[in-house]
């Protein structure tokens, strides 16, 4: 337990110390929020879908959690290159605990970043439907964070160097974001797209966040979202732990 805690604490400390990076990584979500939020707003309104800012804010929060947690997992590559990974791998601690500590730490950092974006969204006019909905929104954020930290750990354990990173970003992480319904409603989609969006774990996260925060009609429903995310989280934690156990220095 101590080992898991100290590795968790390390991740959280590293996150809170990277002030410049925290501010820098606010830029992208704000672009989506402001440019799309105000740019597409009138069209969205005319189509009878209400405020686009209200619609897109949960999507942008989901995106932030996705990017931060995937990246925290992939930061494993830095630890591998700069050596700290070796220090943990020769320690008398089963690898599964090292993996869990790291993953939970990364997930916590992603949640902190997500919370920051939620506040930014509120500054720009986003209003959660009620304050009582917030705890459940944090549950959803936590689940998204765990799913994608484990996913990032699996990728970080499998890559040898940074060359594969762009590939993962462009062919895996960005599609996960664009196909999740973060930017557009998942209703009345072409058949293929409808199927693909249902395979995307983030779809359930965004649907859950949006339903809870804005009270909009949901695509899947809260219970389905929670169940789907929990199952995916368990599956990816097992997969990530397996990949992590295979690392050779």
């Amino acid at each position: 337990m101590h080992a898991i805690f100290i590795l968790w604490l390390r991740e959280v400390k590293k996150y809170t110390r990277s002030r410049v990076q925290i501010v820098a990584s606010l830029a992208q979500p704000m672009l989506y929020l402001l440019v799309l939020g105000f740019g597409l707003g009138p069209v969205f309104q005319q189509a009878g879908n209400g405020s686009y800012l209200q619609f897109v804010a949960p999507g942008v929060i989901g995106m932030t959690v996705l990017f931060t947690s995937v990246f925290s997992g992939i930061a494993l590559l830095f630890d591998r290159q700069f050596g700290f990974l070796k220090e943990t791998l020769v320690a008398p601690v089963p690898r599964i605990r090292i993996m869990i500590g790291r993953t939970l730490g990364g997930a916590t950092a992603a949640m902190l970043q997500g919370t920051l974006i939620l506040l930014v969204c509120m500054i720009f006019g986003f209003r959660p439907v009620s304050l009582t909905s917030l705890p459940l929104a944090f549950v959803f954020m936590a689940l998204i964070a765990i799913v994608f930290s484990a996913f990032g750990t699996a990728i970080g354990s499998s890559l040898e160097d940074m060359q594969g990173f762009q590939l993962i970003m462009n062919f895996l992480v960005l599609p996960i974001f664009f196909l999740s319904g973060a930017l557009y409603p998942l209703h009345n989609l072409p058949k293929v797209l409808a199927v693909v969006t249902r395979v995307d774990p983030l779809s359930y996260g965004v649907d859950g966040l949006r339903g809870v925060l804005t009270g909009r009609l949901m695509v899947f429903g809260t219970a389905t979202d929670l169940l789907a995310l929990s199952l995916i989280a368990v599956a990816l934690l097992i997969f990530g732990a397996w990949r992590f156990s295979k690392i050779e220095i």
Partner: protein
Amino acid sequence: MIRVANLFKKFADFTAVNDVSFEVPKGEIFAFLGPNGAGKTTTIKMLTTLLPPTSGRLELNGLDPIREPNQVRQQFGIVFQDPSLDGDLTAAENLEVHGVLYNVPRKVRRERAEMLLKLFELWERKDTLVKKFSGGMKRRLEIARGFLHTPKILFLDEPTLGLDPQSRNQLWTHVKRLNETEQVTVFLTTHYMEEADRVAHRIAVIDHGKIVAIGTSQELRQRTNSESLEDAFLALTGTTIRDETANSGADQMRQFARMWRR
């Protein structure tokens, strides 16, 4: 303390460690010398549970690194060839993480951290982020960290690489002192022959995965009719230059990390 018998490590296209056997008694400082790519680091990796051997027997303090990796890991401290500190944590935090991972009780952890940081002249800088440390300070911190959990064995894989003579001298003085006061068995590799000559009780020379000679510095010199250990080493391993495969990923990664962290 360390027992190795008929150790082999074969990779797809070559044999890195070829029938190596040796023993290191408790409290000895044992130097493992050899040209680049001779199999030194591979042997250390197998002894420290990072790499499974192809065949052969290994024993550290009576424990088997393959069957009891976690018990074995508790027995040794290691300073790797490349740095393995977390630059985003302070010196004290690096030691704290290490102490927790090695189950050192909080009180002992704090006391030993203070003692070691003072010994290695890092106490005033304990709250500085490690990325602001010089190469020599980082090395000292790594060795201090290796001693934190009072290991029975300390592995030092080219610990003085890239250090100035002052730092090297000071580092070996401390290692010798701790070897005497805490009875730690030290297993080291280095390319600086005069260091091995100065600190090691016994020396093994390895080349192409095989041990070609083993004994005290004097024995090796006598055997080869050499004036110095360096001449003995050259007599034993020849004068051809070995090319190690370059670690090309590292530079690229550093650049990437810099870009990312802006």
